[in-house]
């Protein structure tokens, strides 16, 4: 049976470090190796950073909701914001080169795609954006 952990926090950068701690604790409890644990934590923080800055526009009144689903063969994390969403289909066709130093921002989705096995986006009506990150654990 999968287990679900739900966390909700205000859109403030100060809370992003908490995600690292939560992901680290779960990864340790699941016996994940350090590399996989880091990839999950890095990706979830990127998703939450996007939710905070682009979705909720750094408004502390708007919360970010994170649902972690831990299963025997997979860990998935859903991140919800209250934003208007973006044209992710178009964005995914033209992901910027992350090594381009002329661009200060815009590496988050590339990092998530590289470090996770699956990433999907959904715009939920009257709610906001939902990003789902999945990591298969078959390599252990």
């Amino acid at each position, binding site marked *: 049976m999968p287990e679900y952990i739900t966390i909700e926090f205000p859109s403030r*950068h100060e809370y*992003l*470090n908490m995600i*690292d701690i939560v992901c680290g604790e779960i990864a340790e409890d699941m016996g994940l190796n*350090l*590399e996989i644990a*880091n*990839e999950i*934590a*890095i990706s979830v*923080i*990127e998703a939450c*950073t996007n939710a905070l*800055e682009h979705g909720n526009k*750094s408004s502390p009144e708007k919360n970010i909701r994170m649902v972690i689903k831990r299963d025997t063969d997979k860990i998935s994390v859903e991140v919800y914001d209250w934003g208007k969403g973006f044209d992710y289909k178009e964005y995914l066709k033209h992901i910027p080169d*992350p*090594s381009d*130093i*002329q*661009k*200060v*921002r815009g*590496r*988050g989705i*590339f*990092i998530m795609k*590289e*470090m996770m096995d699956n990433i999907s986006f959904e715009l939920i009506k009257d709610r906001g954006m939902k990003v789902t990150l999945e990591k298969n654990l078959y390599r252990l």
Partner: protein
Amino acid sequence: MKYRIREKGGVAIIELSGKLMGGDDSSIFQGLIYDLLEKNKKNIVVDLSSLSWINSAGMGILISGYTTMRKHQGDLKLLHVSNKIKSLLYVTKLNLIFESFDNEKEAVLSYSSN
């Protein structure tokens, strides 16, 4: 993010601690960089040993500092890069941009060999 600046062998060493995750950190770090430029300090080493976390926004802050220094014929190199930060640098290929060191003496000496 918190910081402390010291100097060794003509090199300004910026010790960062806490989290580098965007927000106000961007203007604070860029202010530091311009303060150093005003003092004609263009050889910079950023010590990341006390940095608990960095995200892509934080990397953007370092990139901004790097490009500013390069535009002024200076450089910005990294010291004590943790495994988490290394994995971010490698996946984004920014490891090819930033010169990084595990040893402070080597980082400082790298400027005198240029």
